[in-house]
């Protein structure tokens, strides 16, 4: 009787110990990001490889579309249960970092002397603060010119060259704007761009004309300067006088991306558009951005990883970030084809350069770093961007002359900057 009891007891003890080890193996961390289900799958693969090397940790990957993603993170954060690791967009980073909800990664980085060695320095800039890094870049986007070869061939216009200026670009766009079916309305435009956010188009144009966007230290919106105004007039004339770009209303008839819809001969975008454009029925290629009076400038922006300060497993979360930021994670992520790896050894290897799904010049996006300015990164970015975008839109709909619209954008933008100063 006693014996059996002893057996039972040891069985229970063993069971408890097993349970204990099982519980330890079940340290689960979450990684949330915005993006498509396919992106979720790729990160799931990265997580699986991480788990194979770290049997004690499980990683739960959750992906949401952009809008729901930010709502969800805010609500989870307010409820005190944020994901351990989540994706960040550099312009929004100061809003989160300055509110003290992100973990300072500096002590962890200090313990890994070579971790930043292989990284393109410009991609680190946005995440650097006076107190260290509270996030690390995941991948980067530079803006390049996309062109529809079939439309250029049909119109007998020479492809964009490395020496193109904005004047050459404007002339070509005008020659490519046509009424192809002869019904009296234009149905092919030379160019299309997303014009509310500075990143894809107006930022690079303002910079190439010698202007600047914001002076964060003094809370000033600079897009009304004399040089910036030349850029605005260039955009305005090409759009509203040459009519080489579809209006918002015209674009609406075909979709949301004019280049993808096959109604615009040229477009500007980052690498994120490549998977969208790859299945297109027309032949297309990429070229560097045109040169302006102040030279060639494009913009660079980085998505990144951050760890919530409230995470219960900061060590495991850091291990995952380190892995995903490292060569294996970056090589896997390069396969998504949506962005460029921030690690030189990966970006300059076949993993990124030779993507079978889209045989274009992928190196162009890396070369663009040499003449790229960082997309503005400051506290209140999203509010500022909406305030400026709303006002500028008045020019593009024809409700206001461009000078008035820019003046209103500066005023609205300065209001937003003032409201977000600490």
């Amino acid at each position: 009787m006693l014996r059996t009891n002893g057996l039972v007891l040891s069985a229970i003890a063993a069971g408890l110990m097993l349970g204990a080890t099982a519980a330890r193996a079940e340290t689960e961390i979450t990684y949330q990001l915005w993006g498509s289900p396919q992106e979720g799958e790729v990160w799931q693969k990265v997580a699986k490889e991480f788990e194979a090397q770290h049997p004690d940790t499980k990683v739960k990957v959750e992906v949401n579309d952009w809008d729901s993603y930010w709502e969800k993170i805010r609500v989870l954060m307010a409820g005190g249960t944020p994901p351990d690791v989540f994706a960040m967009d550099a312009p929004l980073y100061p809003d989160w970092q300055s509110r003290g909800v992100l973990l300072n990664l500096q002590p962890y980085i200090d313990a890994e002397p070579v971790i930043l060695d292989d990284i393109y320095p410009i991609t680190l800039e946005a995440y650097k603060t006076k107190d260290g890094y509270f996030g690390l870049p995941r991948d980067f986007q530079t803006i390049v010119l996309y062109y529809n070869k079939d439309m250029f061939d049909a119109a007998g216009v020479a492809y964009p060259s490395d020496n193109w200026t904005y004047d050459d670009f404007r002339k070509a766009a005008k020659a490519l704007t046509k009424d192809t079916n002869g019904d009296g309305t234009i149905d092919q435009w030379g160019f299309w761009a997303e014009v509310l956010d500075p990143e894809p188009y107006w930022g690079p144009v303002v910079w190439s004309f010698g202007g600047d966007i914001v002076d964060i230290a003094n809370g000033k919106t600079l897009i009304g300067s004399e040089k910036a105004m030349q850029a605005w007039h260039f955009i305005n004339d090409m759009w509203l006088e040459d009519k080489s770009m579809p209006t918002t209303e015209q674009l609406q008839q075909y979709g949301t991306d004019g280049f993808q819809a096959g109604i615009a001969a040229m477009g500007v975008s980052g690498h994120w558009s490549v998977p969208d454009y790859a299945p297109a029925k027309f032949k297309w290629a990429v070229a560097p951005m045109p040169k302006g009076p102040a030279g060639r400038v494009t913009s660079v922006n980085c998505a990144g990883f951050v760890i919530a300060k409230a995470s219960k497993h900061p060590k495991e979360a850091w291990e995952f970030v380190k892995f995903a930021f490292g060569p294996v994670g970056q090589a896997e992520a390069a396969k998504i084809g949506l962005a460029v790896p921030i690690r030189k050894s990966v970006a300059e290897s076949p993993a990124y350069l030779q993507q079978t799904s889209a045989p274009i010049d992928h190196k162009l996006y890396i070369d663009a770093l040499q003449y790229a300015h960082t997309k503005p990164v400051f506290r209140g970015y999203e509010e500022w961007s909406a305030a400026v975008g709303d006002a500028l839109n008045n020019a593009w709909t024809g409700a206001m002359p461009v000078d008035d619209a820019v003046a209103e954008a500066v005023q609205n933008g300065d209001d937003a900057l003032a409201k977000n100063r600490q």
Partner: protein
Amino acid sequence: MNFGLRPLGREKLWVLLLLGPTLLGLAVGAFGSIFATLGLSFFKWDLLTTPEWVGFANYAGLADDRMFLRSLSNTIIFSLLYVPLTIVCAMAVALLLNRRIHGVSLFRTLYFLPVISSPTAVGLLWTWIFAQDQGVLNAMLGNLGIPPVRWLGPNMALYSVVVVNVWGAIGEGMIVFLAGLQAIPREQYEAAHLDGANALQRLIYVTLPAMAPSLFFQSVLSTIHAFQAFDYIYILTRVGNGNSSVPTLVFSIYRNGFRFFRMGDATAQAIVLTAIIFLFTLVYFRIQKRWEVPA
């Protein structure tokens, strides 16, 4: 309003018991969030850090918040057009369909269809109708020799979205008015007929007074819908980047709370919205009382 049935004795217990779950949900869910909204409107809160008491600063700030003022004026103009148009159109449709004609249930279904259709899909369809170059509307105008109109351009967009919203709301108003019309006793019409009242007089002296409660109910409902209008407007006027060329009050609340880290400002705007709807409802109550007394 008078209810036909009144619970008696033990029935009252059952009524309370059966209504309990709903009432509890209302008390905690609806009233809870209303009070939370009111409370938060006196705080500066970004959802991430501890709320900070600011008194009436959020309300004071609204007066020179250009983006808020623009959305407020859009919403007010929209409502001033939407409510009367919806009432008139829905009433006209209800009067036309309140008779024995062939296929009356088909017509009723057709008019009600927009109410149960997905606003996103219907919004996209209207985008095609309003389209500048290949739009249905401009093609029709073109046949009459009229140059194309930019229906969703800066001058017309607000009116175009009013049309779509009224169109979408006719069905709901029609149901309410049909119910009201069918409750009017036939004898009243017969009496009026004997007294020599013509169709117009019957409408003014018999139908409309009898319809006062339905009209009142539908006006309150339409006003609430008008101030909360969002989906059709957003789909028809979005300009990429999550912005809209006709921002409404609800859009502004969403943007401030969930985009700009300004939950305090967003809740203050929500309280302003509630106050406006409340004011309108009070006005309707007054009008209804006046209307009902002589009858």
